[in-house]
């Protein structure tokens, strides 16, 4: 064992545990292996190869590994003070990696090349690091590793000039987020003298200016990454500029990963007095603004972008609540929200990227492709939080958590804000079912991969609607 390594460990901690090193980061190892395999395959073959199969196997294996480790109740600390893995982190990874399967199917339906697959897997690696981080630096590293491939993914395939502009905006604002996060981390170091997550939680409880500043800056950086009002401006452009699979990835997995990482960061801690104001005001503002602006959108991706701003509001609300049950509520929400979004994306009528995006092209969809219309309808109702669809239970859990913390009025206001969103989802249903029957009904053949994604998502959504307990008990 390298003596230097031991010196770096602050406590008289044990030497590196090879077994923990292997198991704790097994999902990440598999992702890395997948990247390497795809890279080698790409290098050795003379013509562009379809990386779908290795990428899919990688993601399923990684998700399976996380699930398996979670079920065995594994927890390990490969790098003391830097990285540790517990059941919650593994469950979160299993959820997020599982959600990647439909994303890959959607990507394959459009076009999937090696760069795309490697960028996607790399970004997932970042999510994995974020969720098992034990120090702020590791967390920062994870977020950067998550974001950098994303900037490239937004321009990937460069369909339109707007894509470049969108990626640029995203890059600049993402850079601001990085800077804010670093500043917050520095202040934490100044306030507490340490960089571990425990130090951050000490700062959360602290009352001095430095601690408050540190905590607020870190939380704001997460808000920027998750696109909460007023840090949301990049999202609609980035979502619109990117291809549909990338939009789906950003709206579901990235957003969920960021929030779950913040939940991981808070862990048992509850928001102190100075954070409460921030965690009440901005999520509420996001719900109201996101839902209101979404009503006026004509493009599907922009609609999803604003709706995802509102949903980021609900997710951040959970941080206000009691720590008990917080992770379950957020993880369930991320899973349900991700699945329903992916379901909607998978059912969009076929056509050129730009045509698919227009809400108008959904008009009368029921008469062309009844199944797709019904599935999008289910997704919309679930996003609106209407029972019996699982979005309702997800919303219920979040607001129950907030109310249990004593914020009754805030929860009521939040519920009313969520009511604003109902109209926008109903509008999509109205377009699909209640518009004039189009004169020439061209059946739009959905691709096999997109159909598979839709079927998988729908099966999961139904299961979650009828047996939510299966997942809730497992989380």
């Amino acid at each position, binding site marked *: 064992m390298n003596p230097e390594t031991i010196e770096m460990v602050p406590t008289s901690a044990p030497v590196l545990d090879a077994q923990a090193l292997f198991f704790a980061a097994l999902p990440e190892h598999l992702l890395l292996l997948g990247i390497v395999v795809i890279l080698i395959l790409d290098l050795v073959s003379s013509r562009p190869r379809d990386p779908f199969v290795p990428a899919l196997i990688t993601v399923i294996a990684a998700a399976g590994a996380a699930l398996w480790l979670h079920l065995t109740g594994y927890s390990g600390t490969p790098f003391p003070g830097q990285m540790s893995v517990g059941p919650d982190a593994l469950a979160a990874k299993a959820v997020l990696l599982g959600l990647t399967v439909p994303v890959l199917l959607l990507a394959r339906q459009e076009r999937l090349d090696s760069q795309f697959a490697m960028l996607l897997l790399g970004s997932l690696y970042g999510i994995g690091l974020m969720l098992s981080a034990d120090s702020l630096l590791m967390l920062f590293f994870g977020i950067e590793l998550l974001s950098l491939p994303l900037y490239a993914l937004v321009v990937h395939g460069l369909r339109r000039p707007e894509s470049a502009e969108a990626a640029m905006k995203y890059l600049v604002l993402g850079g601001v987020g990085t800077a804010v996060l670093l500043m917050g981390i520095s202040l934490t170091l100044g306030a507490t003298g340490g960089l571990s997550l425990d130090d951050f939680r000490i700062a959360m409880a602290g009352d001095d200016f430095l601690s408050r500043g540190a905590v607020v800056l870190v939380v704001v950086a997460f808000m920027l990454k998750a696109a909460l009002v007023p840090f949301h401006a990049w999202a609609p452009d980035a979502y619109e500029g990117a291809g549909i699979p990338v939009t789906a990835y950003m709206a579901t997995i990235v957003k969920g990963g960021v929030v779950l990482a913040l939940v991981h960061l808070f862990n048992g801690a509850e928001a102190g007095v100075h954070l409460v104001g921030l965690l009440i005001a901005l999520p509420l503002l996001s719900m109201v603004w996101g839902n209101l602006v979404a009503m006026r959108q004509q493009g599907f991706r922009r609609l999803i972008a604003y709706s995802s701003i509102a949903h980021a509001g609900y997710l951040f609300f959970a941080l206000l609540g009691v720590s008990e049950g917080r992770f379950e509520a957020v993880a369930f929400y991320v899973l349900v929200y991700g699945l329903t979004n992916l379901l909607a994306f998978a059912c969009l009528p076929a056509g050129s990227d730009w045509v698919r995006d227009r809400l108008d092209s959904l008009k009368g969809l029921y008469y062309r492709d009844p199944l797709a219309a019904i599935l999008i309808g289910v997704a919309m109702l679930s996003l609106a939080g209407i029972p019996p669809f699982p979005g309702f*239970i997800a919303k219920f859990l979040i607001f*129950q958590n907030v109310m249990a913390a004593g914020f009754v009025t805030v929860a009521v206001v939040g519920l009313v804000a969520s009511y604003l969103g109902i109209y926008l989802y109903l509008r999509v249903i109205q377009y699909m079912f*209640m518009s004039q029957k189009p004169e020439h009904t061209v059946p739009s053949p959905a691709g096999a991969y997109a159909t598979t994604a839709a079927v998988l998502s729908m099966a999961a959504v139904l299961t979650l609607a009828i047996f939510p307990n299966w997942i809730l008990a497992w989380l």
Partner: protein
Amino acid sequence: MSESLALNALLFLPVLGGILLLLVPAQRADVIRGVSMLVLLVQLALAVWLYLRFQSGVSGLQFETRLPWIPGLGVHYHIGLDGLNLLLVLLAAFLGPLVVAGAVKSIDRDVKLFHAMVMFIQFTMIGTFLAQDLFLFYVFWEAMLIPMFLIIGIWGGERRIYATLKFFLYTAFGSILMLAAVIYLGYTVLGATGSPSFAFTDLYALELGLEVQIWLLLAFALSFAIKVPMVPLHTWLPDAHVQAPTAGSVILAGVLLKMGTYGFVKLGFPLFPDATLLATPFLMTLAVISIIYGAGLALVQDDIKKIIAYSSVSHLGYVMLGLVSYNLLGVQGALIQMVSHGLVAGGLFLMVGMIYERCHSRDLAAYGGLAKLLPVYSVFFLILTLAAIGLPTTSGFTGEFLVLLGAFTAAWPLYEQGVGYPLALAALAVLGVVLGALYMLRLARRLLFGAVQTPVAVVSDLDLREKLILTTLVAAIFVLGLFPNHFLQKTEQAARDYQEQMLYTPDGEARR
């Protein structure tokens, strides 16, 4: 045991029906109608059997099923029959086949989706009545909006999108505040007993402070009052009724509106008795305003559907009046009035639909003298009119008479103690009966009598299918009017328990 199985079967039959419909090709409209009809008839048979097996004079639930659904949240799949929901389940099951039969001609496109939606709404409505767990109740209550939204929005009239969005958004606003109250109650139970639960019985046992009760009652009452609807929250109803297809109107008037009054009697009032007693003057006034104002509006409409829609506002005002009288007769009357209104308003909407199918107009001014032209139609229409007015021997009489009797019985001792408003309000409510006669007879006179006039040249009288539908309905109206005792026996114990719950604390002390 077999009864609880039958009750579950009754609830889930429409789901089975929906799955069966998926297998039928969309072009085979006749098969789709046949399957739906068969499923709903079996459901009706089960409902009748359960009604007959239901024991009178026993408190609490019968034919109960209770299984854990989401144990972490304390949510159970918990259903059962009691005196409050017994008649409503029977009503919903009775109207189901009539809705399908009534839609044979009027629904000619997307037949498969329509029948799937009828199955869906039948499932959610009966589920709402049967649920004995607040979470489950809320799921059914809210899910019911989805099929109704589509039924009005797809098969409705020219302003259907406006009407259906208004319907959905109005009712969803009430529900969202109710959801807040549901969540609050859930964790109050957790705080009180240490384990989460949404079971009605656990919620009844909560001892909430008056202030909390008032807030929660407000949240529940808003949701229920929108659904009833009570003035001034009724404005969605005329739009929804006018734009809805006949089947939608029948479901809406027949069963859906009762979910509001059922919500009050099952949940809103008994969960928060102290707040309710405090609000009684207010609730009673609103009920009487609904009776008079609804009748007044019905009197000046020229759209036939609107007349019946506003008459619903008026008739459900009686239900509310009976419920807040806390008198056995009044509560019993309210329960009968709910069923009676379901039959009468449902029947009237069916009849309006029949004439609309022939003439494509709902404008009262366009019609006249149908008695000469369509004798059979006119006979049925007159019977329904008289039932709506509340003529003795019809169900309308039983309901309204008992409600008014109950209101007066409850008001008189109060008057002797020097509290005069209940008596004054009860007296005003009688005015509603007079107004009811006025607007219904105005409708019948202008539609059936006078110079013969129709919007189209040739109008045929009722065919066999239509006669059959109306005969069934009229028979039910007379059964309820002539033999109310049979039904009253079954509900009596539940009405007593409700009265007990409202007027006395669990320790037996008077609340007031």
